[in-house]
């Protein structure tokens, strides 16, 4: 796939030997990778279709080393790409050919965990799940739970404003982070937010969440810990029709219920998952819903009763309630393993991430089915139905000429449709390099310009993760012109 034109930007005329010499002055020898075979493992993140070899990889062991790297790069005008566990799905950590990848893998200490104030101060390379594991003895946990939580890091979660299957009730990363400490492009230490619930001035902490590494390099994060609910139970409901399942989602919300999790999978997804994890899903169902309640035992009993009533009225063909924790985890295991399960039944897949108003779920599913026909590619659908976040998984084979391009075009149409339905091109995976062109479908030139000015307010020289997140104005114009032509032949829904 084509790489952003920023990647051959003449602004970055970097003298590699001089850069290496300067970095060697401030870093121990094992903190710098310069040989091709050492750089190769860093050429992509979770979006493997986009690859680029970095100029250098730096692995700081502490904040002082990270700061030294930024100061050298600022002085020499060298781009930097921050990298956590590289589980990101939009290419946000894809290297810049003229830049330094700053891996935060060695900053993996939990600095402080305070059960009384219910906060943890962690370095950016700490894994999401490690925070909950450390908090477990105090009956606390870190609420955002992206499916990659075994591997993904808190620094990456902040950069992407990661969600998860429980964010309808417990919020996204932005709702669960109190403070981010970071280093500006100029090499200054800055604190966004603080140990209190708010901070003076503009809410820069909100900007840091989801900024995809474009505003500052994160060196420390204070997260909120949440008391573990006494009990959680999940309802597994089957539907013989996707429209009924989509309507059931709206009916649950209309009944005044905020489920702890509300997920939907279509038949293609359940059929990929079931042989892989034996979650016990109904293989005849056109769609299944997972609807979770948590709280005190009394509260859960009351809410599960209300959920069942709504699901029955919505025409569910089968309803099962998890009878114990093992069964609850089994029901969830299928949903959490959906991506790898689909990965087993196709050589390659492209994961989309649009969000739409809930009421248009069924309409979107039908549109995707039509597009699947049009492009001749299979698509399994996994939704965070409660908040309208879709993950269509478009299956293709990169070894078949033209399939990758067809998959990309298929995905592009889904994202444009998400915008047309009043939604967004990305709910939680980020823009990165993957969706940078489609940004023009959602934002005007004036809005994109405002984003560029905002970026410059933090990073005047544009050194932090250039070419990601926000497209150049030239790209936007090009996209708009190309799509105007394409729209004449596009199907109408």
């Amino acid at each position, binding site marked *: 796939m084509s790489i952003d034109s920023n990647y051959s930007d003449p602004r970055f005329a970097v003298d590699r030997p001089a850069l290496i010499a300067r970095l060697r002055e401030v870093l121990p020898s094992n903190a710098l990778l310069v040989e091709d075979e050492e750089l190769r493992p860093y050429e992509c993140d979770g979006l493997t279709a986009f690859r680029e070899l970095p100029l250098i990889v730096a692995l700081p062991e502490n904040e002082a080393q990270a700061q030294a790297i930024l100061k050298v790069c600022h002085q020499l005008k060298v781009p930097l790409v921050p990298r956590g566990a590289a589980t990101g799905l939009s290419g946000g950590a894809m290297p810049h050919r003229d830049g330094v990848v700053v891996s935060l893998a060695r900053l993996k200490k939990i600095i402080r965990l305070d059960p*009384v104030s219910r906060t943890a101060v962690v370095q950016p390379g700490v894994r999401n799940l490690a925070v909950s594991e450390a908090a477990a003895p105090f009956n606390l946990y870190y609420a955002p739970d992206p499916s990659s939580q075994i591997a993904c890091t808190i620094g990456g979660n902040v950069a992407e404003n990661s969600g998860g299957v429980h964010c309808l009730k417990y919020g996204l990363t932005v709702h669960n982070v109190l403070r981010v400490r970071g280093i500006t492009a100029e090499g200054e*230490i800055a604190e966004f937010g603080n140990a209190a619930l708010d901070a*003076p001035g*503009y809410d820069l902490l909100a900007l840091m969440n989801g900024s995809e590494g474009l505003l500052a390099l994160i060196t420390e994060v204070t997260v909120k810990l949440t008391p573990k609910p006494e009990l959680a139970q999940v309802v597994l409901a089957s539907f013989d029709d996707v429209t009924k399942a989509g309507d059931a989602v709206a009916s649950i919300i209309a009944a005044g219920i905020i489920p702890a999790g509300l997920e939907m999978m279509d038949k293609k997804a359940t059929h990929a998952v079931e042989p892989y994890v034996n979650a016990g899903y109904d293989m005849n169902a056109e769609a299944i819903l997972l609807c979770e309640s948590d*709280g005190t035992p009394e509260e859960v009993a009351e809410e599960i009763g209300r959920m069942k009533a709504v699901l029955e009225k919505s025409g569910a063909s089968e309803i099962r309630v998890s009878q114990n924790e093992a069964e609850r985890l089994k029901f969830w295991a299928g949903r959490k393993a959906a991506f790898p399960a689909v990965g087993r039944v196709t050589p390659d897949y492209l994961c989309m991430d649009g969000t739409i108003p809930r009421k248009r779920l069924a309409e979107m599913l039908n549109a995707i089915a039509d597009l699947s026909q049009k492009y001749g590619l299979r698509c399994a659908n996994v939704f965070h139905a409660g908040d309208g976040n879709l993950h269509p998984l478009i299956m293709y084979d990169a070894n078949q000429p033209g399939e990758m391009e067809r998959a990309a075009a298929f995905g592009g149409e889904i994202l444009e449709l998400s915008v047309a339905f009043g939604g*967004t091109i990305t709910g*939680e995976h980020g823009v990165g390099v993957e969706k940078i062109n489609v940004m023009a479908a959602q934002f005007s030139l004036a809005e994109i310009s405002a984003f560029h000015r905002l970026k410059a307010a933090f990073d005047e020289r544009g050194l932090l993760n250039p070419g990601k997140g926000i497209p150049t104005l030239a790209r936007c114009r090009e996209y708009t012109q190309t799509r105007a032509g394409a729209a004449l032949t596009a199907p109408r829904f």
Partner: protein
Amino acid sequence: MDSLIKDWTGRVFDAVETGRKLCLRGGGSKVFYGGAEQGELLDLSVNRGIVAYEPTELVVTVRAGTPLAELQAVLAGKGQCLAFEPPHFGAAATVGGMLAAGLSGPRRQAVGAVRDFVLGVKLLDGKGEVLSFGGQVMKNVAGYDVPRLIAGSLGTLGIVLEVSLKVLPLPVAEKSLRFAMNEADALDKLNQWGGKPLPISACAWSDGALTLRLSGAAAAVAAAERSLGGEALAEADAFWASVREQTHAFFAAEVVGEAVGTAAEKTQEQAPLWRLSVPSTAPVLRLGPTLIEWGGALRWLRGGDPAVIRAAAEKASGHATLFRADAALKASAGVFQPLSAPLARIHRNLKNAFDPHGVFNHGRLYPDF
């Protein structure tokens, strides 16, 4: 709204050309908060109405000049609410003013602040351009999160035309309990309870009494009430409204020994009100008469030496705002805790990015912009 936008864009261009400043105001209920108003008044309260509201989407889009009470009545009619319980501080309060001030009420400790519920904004910037950021959906990471940046920016970044907010169902059941307790014990208890899965939705401690509110499913509220004990509070809604709107005796009363002179002078010299935002575990601060909210994370304070208060807030890893005070004290002490050098630079740059000619609400947030 098109003619309004046209009119306001003209006002912005005029101000830019003539080098004047515009003072953006909704209902004027929060004029007391922040630095003094400067420049020509631009009345934003004329921009009214709910643009879209679908209860099953949990989202409402509303014009910024809409009275806050009007929006809340419409939501309540569908069994929903603004969960962060924003203070009005006057009948004229607007949704835009709520967003600009970024202030949240008692329920903030349980559900989050205004900024946590902002999904999208449409604003007119200082170049006269209409820009939309965010949207009407819960999860959206396309572009920087400008909507949340606008919350609490006191109108310094642009004229908010419309805002989309996440709404939640009203709690099914509520119960308020009161405990006789000194300040140190109250802080201990609040932090202990905070670590347990209890449905505590608000708290207020002052003058030897801790009041708690439980909200949620009927069964959960009843179970928590049994385990916590305490004495049931009658007229609970009125009590929480008095805390939220600062009509509670703590806020309304003059502090003995602080005010002297005639009645008019007394009003002038009423002890200033400080808002200290600190970690919930910060100890008793011993700075003067105190009212505690948000599980210990919000401390209201009457009177005191600004330098001592600011230093104490900073030592506790928090910050202090001079919430209500006369103009002279605000000018000398500053309303908001000063920013570190890198943050001050980023603030000026952001102001410049949205309002390059410095037209909007000069000095409301920090004196230099």
